[in-house]
C-alpha cells in the first residue's frame, strides 16, 4: 500500500477482495478468535500486542490458554477484557489504527494476577509491558477501559451463579468447579438445550441430529429422520430411493449410500465364504455359470481386499434360492462394479454358488528397514 503496510499477498486464493488496490488496504478484520467474541467491538487489527501475525496464531498461542485459565482464579474482574484488548486489539474503522488498552487497565491486571501465576511457577507474558500503553486521556490519545456492561467471562467460559468464570469444558463434567457448585446444576441435556441419546444419555447439539452421521451408541440420533414409502429405502442422509435402485451399480442417493457394501462374502456354518450381492436390499447368491477368474479379482478389489486366493463352485441345495446371473453382454461393460454385471435370473443352470477367498492387501511392512547381518 502507499500509506501503510498491507496484509500479505493473497496467494492467488479467491478469498482476495477483487478491488483490493494499493490505496484502500484496510487493516481492520472481523474478530474470529472464539475467546473474544463478546467484546464491545467487532473489528481487530493485526499484528496484535503479543506479536501474533494472525488470529489463527493467536488462537494456538500460549497466552490464549493462559488467560482463560487465570480468569478462573477471579484475581481481577476485568482480566479477560484486558487479555482480549491485547490478543485482538480494537481497530478504529476510520483510521484503520489499532487502539490500545489504557495503562491503568494493564497495571491493575498485572498487579492482581501476576502473583497468582507466580504460585504455579509461571510468569506474566513478557510482551505485555504496561508502559507501552498510554495513560487514560493523555494528550487525547484514546485507549480502552472497561465499562460496567463489559462481560467478565469469555464465550469459552461458564458463568457461575456467584459471578465467577470457569472453563466451559468443566460445565457438567461431574466435578464442582464453581464456588457455589452451580456448574454442576441443571446438567440435563434439555436444560442445556441439547438432545439426549436415549441409551447412553449423551447430550448432542441439535445440529447433528439426522445429519447422516450417527453419534449415539445406538444410532438413535439417526432414526425416524424421514418417512419413505413401502417400496422405498432410506439413504444414510435420509433421502428415499426406490428399493429396485438399491445396489444396482449406480448411485441414486446423494451420499451414494445405496451403493455401499453391495458385494460381500457371507460366512456359512462350514466356514465357506459365499459371494453375496445385496440387490434391491435383498441378499442374492451369485450363479457360477460362465464365471471367470477376472470377476473374482474384481469382487476382491471392490471389497478393498487383495488378490483372490481361491474360487470354488459349490452346489446350492435350497430350491427357492434367489439368483443373480451374469448379464449376457457382461464382457462389453468396463470400469464398473461387479454387481452392475449381474441381473436377476429365473434360474441358475449349474445351481452352483461361488465360494471366494481373497487375500488381504499387503501393508505395514518395511523391507528396507531390515536388520542386515554384518
Amino acid at each position, binding site marked *: 500500500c502507499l500509506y501503510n503496510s498491507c496484509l500479505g499477498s493473497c496467494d492467488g*486464493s479467491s478469498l482476495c477482495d477483487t478491488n483490493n488496490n494499493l490505496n484502500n488496504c484496510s487493516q481492520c478484520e472481523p474478530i474470529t478468535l472464539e475467546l473474544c467474541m463478546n467484546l464491545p467491538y467487532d473489528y481487530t487489527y493485526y499484528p496484535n500486542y503479543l506479536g501474533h501475525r494472525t488470529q489463527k496464531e493467536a488462537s494456538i498461542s*500460549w497466552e490464549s490458554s493462559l488467560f482463560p485459565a487465570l480468569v478462573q482464579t477471579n484475581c481481577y474482574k476485568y482480566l479477560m477484557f484486558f487479555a482480549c484488548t491485547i490478543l485482538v486489539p480494537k481497530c478504529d474503522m476510520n483510521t484503520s489504527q489499532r487502539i490500545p488498552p489504557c495503562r491503568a487497565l494493564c497495571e491493575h491486571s498485572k498487579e492482581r494476577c501476576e502473583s497468582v501465576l507466580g504460585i504455579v511457577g509461571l510468569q506474566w507474558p513478557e510482551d505485555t509491558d504496561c508502559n507501552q500503553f498510554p495513560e487514560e486521556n493523555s494528550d487525547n490519545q484514546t485507549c480502552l477501559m472497561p465499562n460496567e456492561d463489559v462481560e467478565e467471562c469469555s464465550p469459552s467460559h461458564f458463568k457461575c451463579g456467584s459471578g465467577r468464570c470457569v472453563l466451559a*469444558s468443566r460445565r457438567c463434567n461431574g466435578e464442582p468447579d464453581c464456588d457455589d457448585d452451580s456448574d454442576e446444576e441443571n446438567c440435563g441435556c434439555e436444560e442445556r438445550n441439547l438432545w439426549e441419546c436415549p441409551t447412553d444419555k449423551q447430550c448432542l447439539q441439535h445440529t447433528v441430529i439426522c445429519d447422516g452421521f450417527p453419534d449415539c451408541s445406538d444410532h438413535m440420533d439417526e432414526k425416524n429422520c424421514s418417512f419413505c414409502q413401502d417400496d422405498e429405502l432410506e439413504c444414510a442422509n435420509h433421502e428415499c430411493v426406490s428399493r429396485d435402485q438399491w445396489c444396482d451399480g449406480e448411485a441414486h442417493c446423494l451420499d451414494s449410500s445405496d451403493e455401499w457394501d453391495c458385494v460381500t462374502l457371507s460366512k456359512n456354518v462350514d466356514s465357506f465364504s459365499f459371494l453375496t450381492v445385496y440387490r434391491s436390499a435383498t441378499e442374492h447368491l451369485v450363479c457360477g455359470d460362465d464365471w471367470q477368474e477376472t470377476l473374482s479379482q474384481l469382487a476382491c478389489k471392490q471389497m478393498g481386499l487383495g488378490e483372490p486366493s481361491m474360487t470354488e463352485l459349490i452346489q446350492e441345495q435350497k430350491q427357492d434360492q434367489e439368483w443373480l446371473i451374469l448379464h449376457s453382454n457382461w464382457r462389453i461393460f468396463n470400469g464398473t462394479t461387479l454387481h452392475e454385471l449381474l441381473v436377476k435370473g429365473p434360474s441358475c443352470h449349474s445351481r452352483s454358488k461361488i465360494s471366494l477367498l481373497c487375500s488381504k*492387501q499387503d501393508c*505395514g511392512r518395511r*523391507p*528396507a*528397514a531390515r536388520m542386515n547381518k554384518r
Partner: protein
Amino acid sequence: ILGGRTSRPGRWPWQCSLQSEPSGHVCGCVLIAKKWVLTVAHCFEGRETAAAWKVVFGINNLDHPSSYMQTRLVKTIILHPRYSRAVVDYDISIVELGEDISETSYVRPVCLPSMLQSLEPDTYCYITGWGHMGHKMPFKLQEGEVRVISLEQCQSYFDMKTITTRMICAGYESGTVDSCMGDSGGPLVCEQPGGQWTLFGLTSWGSVCFSKVLGPGVYSNVSYFVEWIERQIYIHTFLV
C-alpha cells in the same frame, strides 16, 4: 518432532510430504493404498484446490531427492464433512493421487486398523515428520516414540478444548517427545504382533511446541474414521 532422532531411509516407507508452491513442504501425510493418502483437513485451510498440491514419497532428506523418490500430483481432496476449523474436530482428509505409486522397499502403504481396533493407554507407538524440532526445521525425517494416554487424562492438559472420541492423545506430561508445526497429517503408527505396522493416528494439534512445551500431542483417531475412509475410496473408485 521434538525430542526425537533422525530416521533412516526405508524405516517409514508410508511417510509422505504434502507440498505446495511456494512453501514447499507444508504437512506430513500417509500412504494407505497405491492411489490413496491420508492427511489432516486443517492442512488445506485456504488452499483446497487439488491443483495446488503434490505429494512426495520415498525421501528421507527434504533437500536431497533420493533415487527412491516418487512424486505424484493430487487428483482429489476429500475433507471430512464435519471438519470443524474452530475446535479442530473430525480433522481428517483423504487425497487421491493423479496416478498409482510404484510399490518399492521405500514406498509402501501402512495398514489401516479395523473399526473395532483401538489403542490401549500406555501403548508405545511412533510419530514421524519433517516438522519443527523446537529450535529449527529439519531436512531429515525425524522419528519419536510416544506413549498413548487416556482421553480423560488428556482432557486435563487442555482446559480450553474438548477432547473427543475422534482424537487420540500421545506423548508425555513434560512434552519431551512430541509432534510440532509441520508434522500435521503425519502418522502415529504402532507395531502389531507379526511385525506389521498399523496407522492409528494423524498428527493434528497440541499446545505450543516452540517453547514452554506442556502436555501431549493430539492425533486424529483413524479407527473412528475407517468406515468413512473405505467408503470414500469405494465411491471414488467404482462409482465415478
